[in-house]
């Protein structure tokens, strides 16, 4: 097969609509039918972290008869936002478990009056003691979920850690923490709903996973699946934040539409979006690591805990990915990982690019710098002595079959960043300088696709259909959220069919029209769904070849003529592909061992920082990202993923600090929750190595989450190199740096 488009930076398929402002996001949707009219919906929330609802009062001065008012009593089916567990209600009735819990829904045509009305609803709550930290949750002083506050725990055992300590010359311990992080997609979440008993429920909105919303609404309304239809509008960023929460907004908009008979729009403003929707799980990781004098890992004992917030949502799966990535791309004969996700009275934490891995990798890559120092090795030399190689096993016992060469990635990253020369120069210049500079690195890998048996369970499907004009439509529920799904799917299909990218159409993700190709998460779209696109395209072409209407080497015109005659003489020309696992993948959920992922992307990142000892600000001044990704289907889009992920991770490392007050985000505005601007980012220099993965489309592996994993530890390692202060928690804000530097000065008198 000729690669005419694959490997080339084809321009973004929907790019023209985006640069001209014509792309329609949920808040931009106009509906041709004037009837029913569109009205606005709003959510009244508890402001108490935990308690019992005593009553709801509707204040004076509001024409309540004009409003549609919905409470839990109005739900036709089950009062539940279904995901993994069955614990999260759509609207609280009885108990309150976090301070942003939705209790009452309102709708009215005038959104200014609606806001006044929202403020006039008073929810009387008898408060109960609440807990807000991992420590409080683990202590069990209040049990707020299940019998012990633990949503899920895992244990990974490789070798025998307890007996291995005796063989270690040096043992290094450390505790590391990461804070919550807001996804901060620039488009706030929103949904428009139309619903009636006769026609069922239709939703338009901003989302990553139309079939998640579909499943949740089916249960909520107690309707057959075909009565629920979910359509993705253009979506202004997701980063995981639009994986599970859209089901909640969809449910709310649909309930108001069901009761009012009107079309109802709920679009959050920034304050509500930051307050109520999910964030990255805060984490605490404890490491105890045994090494020989010459720097070989002997034993790794890892205790990993994440704060899941008030309901289980996706925490078990986030924990799973964080657990599996906790021991990194290293070979160690004895590894024990104890992992737990626990409940607190904060809004549920959820999916965010990297999905637990950035937390556990931060801890490991910070810790390994301490271990290296303890055995008098440089950070890079220590890692070289322990890098995993082909044929060796990961913590879960997965034998690496990929031709991974982490030494080569490290060599390239050190060369591109001019690492050694800069280290030497900074060491010379730093004494006496007010701005101290340093270099730091991190080595890591990120598994693509669902963990373990997840992809087999999903059994994703892609369909394709040809038109008489010789265009081919791809039918999939995978969403374009900025990462380039539309474009890379077109490239894959065009090359498989031997026609132009402009002959490929992407069907709008609409559960009424496309099959379930799975959620747009877990770095799975290019590798898993992309492969299904390729297979469906090859199947469609095979049908034409076998019909005798087409020769293998055909022109676009011949292809179009063949499509036309096929459709005229035999009917619709369609194809379908469904996920089959690559041979030899085995995973055991009971022992948490085996092949956790079909493939990993491998990376070495180097950060250069400057720390101002007067203002205590740390800045990243240069960044090198070297990664092996199988095959970059579209190098410009792939680089865009890495650059964006690195910037988001720079935010996680230095700026993005969620301030909590009694379970609520106290700084839920862009004014005081600070993400990187154009003035804050360094040059981000991206380099790809390619080792084709046999089961990805043209060798491609997943890359979307990878760049979130490495920057934070690399940056904090660089801060330590620059200043000798050992920060173990992110974000490293000026306040935290000041505190650490002041302590250090104090300690030295």
């Amino acid at each position, binding site marked *: 097969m000729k690669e005419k488009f694959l490997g080339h930076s084809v321009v973004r398929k929907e790019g023209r609509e985006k*640069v001209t402002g014509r792309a329609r996001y949920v808040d*931009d949707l106009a509906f041709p039918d004037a009837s029913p009219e569109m009205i606005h919906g709003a959510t009244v929330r508890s402001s108490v972290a935990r308690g019992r609802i005593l009553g709801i009062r509707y204040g004076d001065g509001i024409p309540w008869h004009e409003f549609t008012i919905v409470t839990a009593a109005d739900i036709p089916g089950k009062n539940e936002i279904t995901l993994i567990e069955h614990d999260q209600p759509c609207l609280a009735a009885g108990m309150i478990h976090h301070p942003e819990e939705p209790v009452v829904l309102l709708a009215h045509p005038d959104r200014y009056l609606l806001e006044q009305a929202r403020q006039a609803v008073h929810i009387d709550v008898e408060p109960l003691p609440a807990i807000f930290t991992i420590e409080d949750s683990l202590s069990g002083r209040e049990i707020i979920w299940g019998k012990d506050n633990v949503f899920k725990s895992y244990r990974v055992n490789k070798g025998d850690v307890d007996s291995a300590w005796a063989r270690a010359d040096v043992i290094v311990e450390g505790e590391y923490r990461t804070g919550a992080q807001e996804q901060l997609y620039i488009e706030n979440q929103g949904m428009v709903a139309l619903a009636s008993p006769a026609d069922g429920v239709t939703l338009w909105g901003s989302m990553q996973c139309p079939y998640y919303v579909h499943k949740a609404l089916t249960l909520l309304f107690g309707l057959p699946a075909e009565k629920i239809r979910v359509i993705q509008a253009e979506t202004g960023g997701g980063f995981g934040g639009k994986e599970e929460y859209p089901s909640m907004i969809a449910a709310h908009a649909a309930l108001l539409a069901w009761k009012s008979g009107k079309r109802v729009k709920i679009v959050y403003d920034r304050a509500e979006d930051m307050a109520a929707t999910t964030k990255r799980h805060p984490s605490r990781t404890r490491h105890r690591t045994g090494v020989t004098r010459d720097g070989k890992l002997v034993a790794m004992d890892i205790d990993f805990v994440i704060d899941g917030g008030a309901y289980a949502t996706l925490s078990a799966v986030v924990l799973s990915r964080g657990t599996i990535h906790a021991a990194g791309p290293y070979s160690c004969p004895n590894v024990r990982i104890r992992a737990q996700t626990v409940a607190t009275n904060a809004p549920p934490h959820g999916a965010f690019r990297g999905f637990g891995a950035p937390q556990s990798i931060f801890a490991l890559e910070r810790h390994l710098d301490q271990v290296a120092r303890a055995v008098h090795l440089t950070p890079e030399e220590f890692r070289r002595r322990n890098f995993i190689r082909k044929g060796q096993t990961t913590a879960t016992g997965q034998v690496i079959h990929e031709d991974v060469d982490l030494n080569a990635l490290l060599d390239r990253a050190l060369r591109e960043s001019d690492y050694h020369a800069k280290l030497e120069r900074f060491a010379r210049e730093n004494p006496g300088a007010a701005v101290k500079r340093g270099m730091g690195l991190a080595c890591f890998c990120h598994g693509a696709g669902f963990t373990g048996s997840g992809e087999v369970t999903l059994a994703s499907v892609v369909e394709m259909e040809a038109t008489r004009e010789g265009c081919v439509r791809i039918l999939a529920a995978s969403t374009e959220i900025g990462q380039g799904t539309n474009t890379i799917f077109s490239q894959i299909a065009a090359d498989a069919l031997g026609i132009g990218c402009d002959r490929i159409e992407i069907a709008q993700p609409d559960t009424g029209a496309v099959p379930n190709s799975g959620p747009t998460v877990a770095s799975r779209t290019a590798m898993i769904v992309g492969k299904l696109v390729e297979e469906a395209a090859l199947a469609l072409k095979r049908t034409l070849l076998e019909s005798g209407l087409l020769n293998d080497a055909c022109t676009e015109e011949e292809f179009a003529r063949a499509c036309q005659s096929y459709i005229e003489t035999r009917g619709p020309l369609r194809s379908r592909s469904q996920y089959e696992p690559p041979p030899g993948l085995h995973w055991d959920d009971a022992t948490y061992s085996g092949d956790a992922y079909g493939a990993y992307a491998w990376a070495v990142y180097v950060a250069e920082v400057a720390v101002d000892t007067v203002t205590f600000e740390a800045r990243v001044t240069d960044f090198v990202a070297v990664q092996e990704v199988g095959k970059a289907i579209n190098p410009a889009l792939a680089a865009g993923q890495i650059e964006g992920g690195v910037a988001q991770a720079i935010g996680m490392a230095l700026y993005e600090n969620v301030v909590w007050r009694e379970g609520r985000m106290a700084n839920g505005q862009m004014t005081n929750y600070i993400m990187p601007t154009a003035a804050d980012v360094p040059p981000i220099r991206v380099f790809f190595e390619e080792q084709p993965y046999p089961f990805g489309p043209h060798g491609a592996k997943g890359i979307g989450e990878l760049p979130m994993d490495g920057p934070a530890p690399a940056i904090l390692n660089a801060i330590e190199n620059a200043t000798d202060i050992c920060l173990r928690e992110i974000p490293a804000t000026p306040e935290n740096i000041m505190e650490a530097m002041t302590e250090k000065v104090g300690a030295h008198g």
Partner: protein
Amino acid sequence: MADTVAKIKIACTVNGERRSVQAYPMARLLDVLREEMHLTGTKEGCGEGECGACAVLLDGAIVNSCLVPAIDAGGAEIRTIEGIAGGEQLHAVQAAFLECGGAQCGICTPGMVIAALALLDRYPHPGDAEIREGLAGNLCRCTGYQKIFASVVRACEARPAQPEKKR
């Protein structure tokens, strides 16, 4: 609010067309553009002037339309993203964003394109520091800004020393 203050007539020029709408004097220009004029290319990201998604040109100067009261738009010349391309012919800045990968999810793109136009109006050939400063009021969560910087540089190359058409 709504029952104590009356709507007023606001006449202005938007993308070269004379427009007249009824709006509350303190309504946000953003809402007037989006709801009264159906120009939904201008986006709301934060509603407090931090993200720049709602940027438009008001008498040639870049403003966050979420912070501008409708009454201030009376008599003004406004340019929104819908008025940047010449029909189907993309403006050089738009073409550069398309070619260089400056747009990902696209929600910041209208504001970013407006900011780039305002920047190039001030500095026809901006250096790295000027580009960063000129775009620092517009947040993008997808790109890490690298390809946006490249888009601005490309746009300059495509339009050597040709000043913005005067409004």
